[in-house]
């Protein structure tokens, strides 16, 4: 009885913390239309700053209250203003995918900055507020204790709820914040400034993120950047519960989640896949909530701001590129060694995963954050089938991943854009904690033999690298051929206008399922190849790695096969660079930061840049389209005059 009450209390406190952070996500989303995947990272930076100001044993401490005040009132609003001005303002009217990529980039930049400033092995401890104080209810030896920290969390959650209510209900800026998403232009005409409102949304969102970070710091001590950044992922489930818009429902969702997590810790049996239930249960709940939520029906979206698409390589060009890649890989296999060879070897395989994303995200416009999960399944199959490491295993990896992709696609068919991204994010987390960690990390490593062709064992790193390059070359040629064909046209059409796609007699759901299965199969193949290179580890297939890969692909060009190769190679290179001390370790964060600034301007990434300029020139000049536009404008002017 008292046990149950304690778990309930802990659950409510956890829920309170989640509510604070989730309400920040909702505030930013509902005022700016941007779902901030970097929300947790802002909280993480806040917690680290608080440690630096008030808990760092190396220099004289500021009082905790002063430290907190600086973090909440100076740092968090500054971050919000910077993010809005540098990254978000240009994205008005951009596609959901691009906005998501930019927030992923922001997440990585904040992680990079944190690691640059607070890297190393120091253990950063933040003690609970009001240490030693607690209120005890019930008999001695039983009963429930509430610590001061817990009371504070509850109080802050309640204050946030009341404060947000008052702000949105009574203050002018609050009312403008509610109105801005619906129709910024109308709001502007009514005298409010949408930019000011968006700025307020970012400042308030970052403030709430920092508040959550400060509150949760002592529970997560010693502070670790990755863990803290992804903690808020659980808050996403609460936000989804409120359909990303309703604050009261978000609070309720956070409370339910907190209780669920707490009871899971207390009462679930110790089976292997349940061992990490507290980590994946909220994610499973997020998945379910997204599936159950009423979705917008298929709806006309109208004309986009820009839709410039890179030219698709013809058969001759793609064959030439494939041959060049294989030749380069042969040379690299012969010349390179050590780290460089590993980079090439790992890079082409990550490139293959990126290629599966070109199909899914670049062509069909479906964002999946779980693509590495399918690679992980492929790697797992490679280890399990036919004694580990055989061509049969490769087949099984591709087949099982593709089948799994189709199965996953079925419930997510009705989701699109942001909701699909969140569902796949949930899937990636559940797969990691319910499957990969217990099945791969915590069992004895499986021996996976390296593949061979008759008379040609592929047993060295150099030959593995060539194998990966050949696989990429073949898959790349096929993907490009498909893009030029009926199916490719359909994927692009589906991405551009699902509603028109349906009204010309094509099945939106079937096509989505097809492309999901196909891309999962390609990712599975990559997983099978990866399994040959290393002793498997769940971290190769986790959410963060997947996010980095997706972002790099977006930076290089999400619609190009060569972009996929470059994304894979850069991921491998960044992995190695970031383990370097000194200036080299800073390159990844800087590169990514530059990349997302670029993304705000160039929807097709680096590889699309030249093309964009060419198109701009063509539009200005002599094309029939240009003439027609002028004629049309003249006609319109004439009509107005008359």
């Amino acid at each position, binding site marked *: 009885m008292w046990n149950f009450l304690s778990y309930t209390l802990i659950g409510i406190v956890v829920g309170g913390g989640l509510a604070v952070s989730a309400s920040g996500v909702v505030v930013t989303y509902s005022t700016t239309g941007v779902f901030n995947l970097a929300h947790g990272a802002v909280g993480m930076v806040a917690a680290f700053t608080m440690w630096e100001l008030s808990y760092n044993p190396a220099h004289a401490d500021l009082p905790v209250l002063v430290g907190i005040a600086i973090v909440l009132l100076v740092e968090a609003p500054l971050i919000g203003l910077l993010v809005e001005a540098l990254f978000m303002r240009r994205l008005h009217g951009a596609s959901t995918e691009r906005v998501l990529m930019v927030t992923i980039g922001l997440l990585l930049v904040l992680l990079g900055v944190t690691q640059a400033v607070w890297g190393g092995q120091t253990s950063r401890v933040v003690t609970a507020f009001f240490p030693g104080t607690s209120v005890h209810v019930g008999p001695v030896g039983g009963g429930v204790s509430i610590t001061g920290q817990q009371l504070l969390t509850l109080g802050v959650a309640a204050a946030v709820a009341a404060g947000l209510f008052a702000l949105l209900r009574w203050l002018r800026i609050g009312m403008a914040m509610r109105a801005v998403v619906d129709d910024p232009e109308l709001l502007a005409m009514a005298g409010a400034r949408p930019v000011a409102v968006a700025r307020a949304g970012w400042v308030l969102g970052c403030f709430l993120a920092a508040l959550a970070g400060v509150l949760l710091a002592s529970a997560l001590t010693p502070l670790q950047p990755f863990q803290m950044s992804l903690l808020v992922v659980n808050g996403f489930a609460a936000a989804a519960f409120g359909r990303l818009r309703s604050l009261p429902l978000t609070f309720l969702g956070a409370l339910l989640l907190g209780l669920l997590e707490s009871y899971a810790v207390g009462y679930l049996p110790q089976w292997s896949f349940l061992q990490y239930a507290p980590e994946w249960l909220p994610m499973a709940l997020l998945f379910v909530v997204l599936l159950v939520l009423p979705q917008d*029906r*298929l*709806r*006309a*979206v*109208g*004309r*986009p701001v*820009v*839709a*410039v*698409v890179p030219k698709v390589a*013809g*058969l001759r060009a793609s064959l030439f590129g494939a041959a060049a890649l294989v030749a380069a890989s042969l040379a690299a296999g012969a010349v390179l060694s050590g780290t460089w060879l590993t980079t090439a070897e790992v890079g082409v395989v990550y490139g293959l995963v990126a290629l599966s994303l070109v199909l899914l995200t670049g062509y069909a416009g479906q964002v999946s954050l779980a693509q590495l999960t399918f690679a992980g399944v492929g790697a797992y199959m490679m280890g399990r089938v036919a004694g580990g490491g055989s061509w049969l295993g490769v087949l099984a990896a591709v087949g099982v991943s593709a089948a799994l992709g189709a199965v996953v696609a079925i419930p997510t068919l009705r989701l699109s854009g942001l909701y699909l991204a969140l569902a796949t994010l949930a899937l990636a987390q559940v797969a990691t904690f319910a499957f990969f960690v217990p099945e791969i990390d915590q069992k004895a490593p499986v021996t996976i033999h390296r593949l061979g062709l008759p008379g040609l064992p592929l047993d060295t790193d150099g030959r593995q690298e060539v194998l990966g390059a050949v696989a990429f070359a073949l898959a790349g040629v096929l993907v490009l*051929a*498909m893009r*030029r*064909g*009926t*199916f*490719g*046209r*359909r994927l*692009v*059409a589906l*991405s*551009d*206008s699902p*509603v*028109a*796609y*349906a*009204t*010309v*007699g*094509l*099945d*939106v759901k079937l096509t989505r399922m*097809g492309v999901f299965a196909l891309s999962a199969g390609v990712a599975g193949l990559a997983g099978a190849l990866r399994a040959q290179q290393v002793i498997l580890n769940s971290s190769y297939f986790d959410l963060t790695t997947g996010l980095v890969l997706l972002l790099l692909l977006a930076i290089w060009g999400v619609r190009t096969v060569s972009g996929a190769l470059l994304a894979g190679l850069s991921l491998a290179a960044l992995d190695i660079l970031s383990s370097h001390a000194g200036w080299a370790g800073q390159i990844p964060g800087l590169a990514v930061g530059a990349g997302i600034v670029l993304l705000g301007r160039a929807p097709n990434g680096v590889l699309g840049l030249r093309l964009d300029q060419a*198109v701009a020139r063509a*539009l200005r000049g002599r*094309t*029939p*389209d*240009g003439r*027609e*536009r002028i*004629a*049309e404008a003249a*006609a319109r002017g004439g009509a107005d005059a008359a």
Partner: protein
Amino acid sequence: MPPEAMWMPPEAMWMPPEAMPMPSEALWWGGPPSGCPPALAARHVSVRFGGVQALHDVSLEVQAGQVTGLIGPNGAGKTTLFDVMTGLQRPDSGQVVLDGRDVTGLGPHRRARLGVGRTFQRLELFWSLSVADNVRVGAESSVQWWGWDSVRRSVRRFGANRAGDPGSLAFGAAAVNALLDRVGLTGFGDARTDALSTGSARRVELARALAIGPSVLLLDEPCSGLDDAESSALGDLLTDLARDGMAVLLVEHDMDLLMRVCDNVTVIDAGTVIGRGTATEVRDDSAVQAAYLGVAAGAARSGGGGR
């Protein structure tokens, strides 16, 4: 059979709203008294969005071989009715009947395969595909993408051009070009869709809708953004299509065009049918002017030239 000879019993020609029979009784005069069943019909359709009754007990029939006009002020429910008829919006009550078959439960792509084509008031093109490819996606909609034909085509850019039948697997570049010719976009095949003017983009949508070989064509304001010459050409095209046996339903504000091409016109306002008749009858009716053409038209007619 000349279109004007059928369709309405004389006593039901145009009557003021207060004298109109209730829609349930009105069903019989919504179509010809005997013979040819409608190609596409909405029967007693109601749709409610939250607190707004977008459509209330609306019935509308579209006959093969005729151009039917649908007019009404903005927000009257015209596009919602289109969505109901094409399967994008499920009605709260009522039925949609295609060629005698109840298709109310079928999704948009199933109805399109049964021959319902449409365009959109807010343009819905495949903006990242070329003009020709937009039309091709429609033309190839019956092709199985995993089939041999699709593979062959991806290798040879436009495949063999054996026939001009939009439903056939050999529907090739020449047929796409023929469709572009038909809507007046000759030579625009390789143009970027997102660089087109609104008028041209509307015609790409029309060509794409025609490419699926529809028996019923629903056009949502196809003339907005077109100049007079283009509108006139479009009117001729619609007349031709109807003469070939297609059923055309047209939402349009241009009364001159309506009068030229429509065999009959239905007026809706605030989600209910307030009148039916020939274009001339509808134009000359004062109640319709009040509801649809607005005060300005009334003022202009009374010689005031209000503004």
